[in-house]
């Protein structure tokens, strides 16, 4: 099962090198959640109309729904993982992860609803904080930004509390 995985320290080094390349060659940090906010704007266009989306301050100024460096980076991340999974033979359709099933049962609907709500809360938090695990956690932290280290520590604490509340009853160590 673990055959596709590389040493986590090696992967960390390579992500660090990738950061150095994006900073120096493209003058861009690594980040994901702005791209997802841009995608959200693109999805809102058919419902709200182009004018209303363009009139929204956030989509007009902070996350313009268009293909640019940031949104294409997100698309690239999707393709990269897909190719890596297929090439390594680890691509597998799965709806309910193991420790979720052990705790909450094998209902696909239950898992999807939770993932949907979790995802909504996650991205709202990421936009409020102006970054996610990539933009703050890696790119911001490596620049020693006050905002990013605050985010990292608070996010981690919040995750620990949430995980204890949800999964403490999982007896399996």
């Amino acid at each position, binding site marked *: 099962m673990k055959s596709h995985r590389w040493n986590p320290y090696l992967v960390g080094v390579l992500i660090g090198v990738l950061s150095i390349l994006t900073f120096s060659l493209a003058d861009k940090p690594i980040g994901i959640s702005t791209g997802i906010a841009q995608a959200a704007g693109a999805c809102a266009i058919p419902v709200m109309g182009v004018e209303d989306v363009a009139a929204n301050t956030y989509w007009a100024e902070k996350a313009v729904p268009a293909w640019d460096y940031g949104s294409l980076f997100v698309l690239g991340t999707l393709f*990269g*993982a897909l190719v890596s999974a297929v090439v390594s033979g680890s691509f597998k359709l799965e709806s309910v992860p193991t420790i979720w099933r052990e705790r909450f049962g094998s209902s696909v609907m239950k898992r999807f609803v939770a993932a949907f709500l979790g995802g909504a809360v996650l991205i*709202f938090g990421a936009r409020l904080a102006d970054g996610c695990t990539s933009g703050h956690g890696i790119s911001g932290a490596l620049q020693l930004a006050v905002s990013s280290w605050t985010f990292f520590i608070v996010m981690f604490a919040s995750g620990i509390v949430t995980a204890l509340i949800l999964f403490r009853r999982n007896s399996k160590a």
Partner: protein
Amino acid sequence: MHTTLAFITGPNLLWAGLLFGFVFGVLLHRGGVTDYNVIVKQFLFRDFTVLKVMFTAIVVGGVGVFILHGQDLANFHIKPATMLAVVLGAVLFGIGMVIYGYCPGTGVAAIGAGKLDALAGFFGMLVGGIAYAFSYDWIAANILPVADLGKKRLPELSTLPEWVWYAGLVVLAACIFALVARFEKSSPKS
């Protein structure tokens, strides 16, 4: 400020985004962090993959960018320390990350690896993004200005030379890795 190494500009940035993103996706998958179990177990201190990947990336990237910045070969891109927004956002993020089981980047990568729950959560992320866009004017007026320290970096909080902070970062990472190694040795394999 334009740096001499930053030759990727204009339309080429689009291809660079796709290429760099692709490499990032490969690395997230190979690192094992496109797995719900790995992420949630980090928060339960049963698996330390996330911390290992992140702290190594921070140290290597941090020292590298610091050196390049010193040679005027890279710019910093600091996000503003709007402290109330950052803290509230981080609290929501931690809750969302455990329930969703991925962060935005690993979620997108997990979709590529075939995780359908990651796709369900992606639709949730789109809805969350729309909700934020609608709330933005109010948040910009009422939340973002509270305790806004500006684009501050940790070295600006003290009079210590900047390299001391980076040395501290390396020591911090080394301590964390040593603690993790000791912890993994003493606890039974899951």
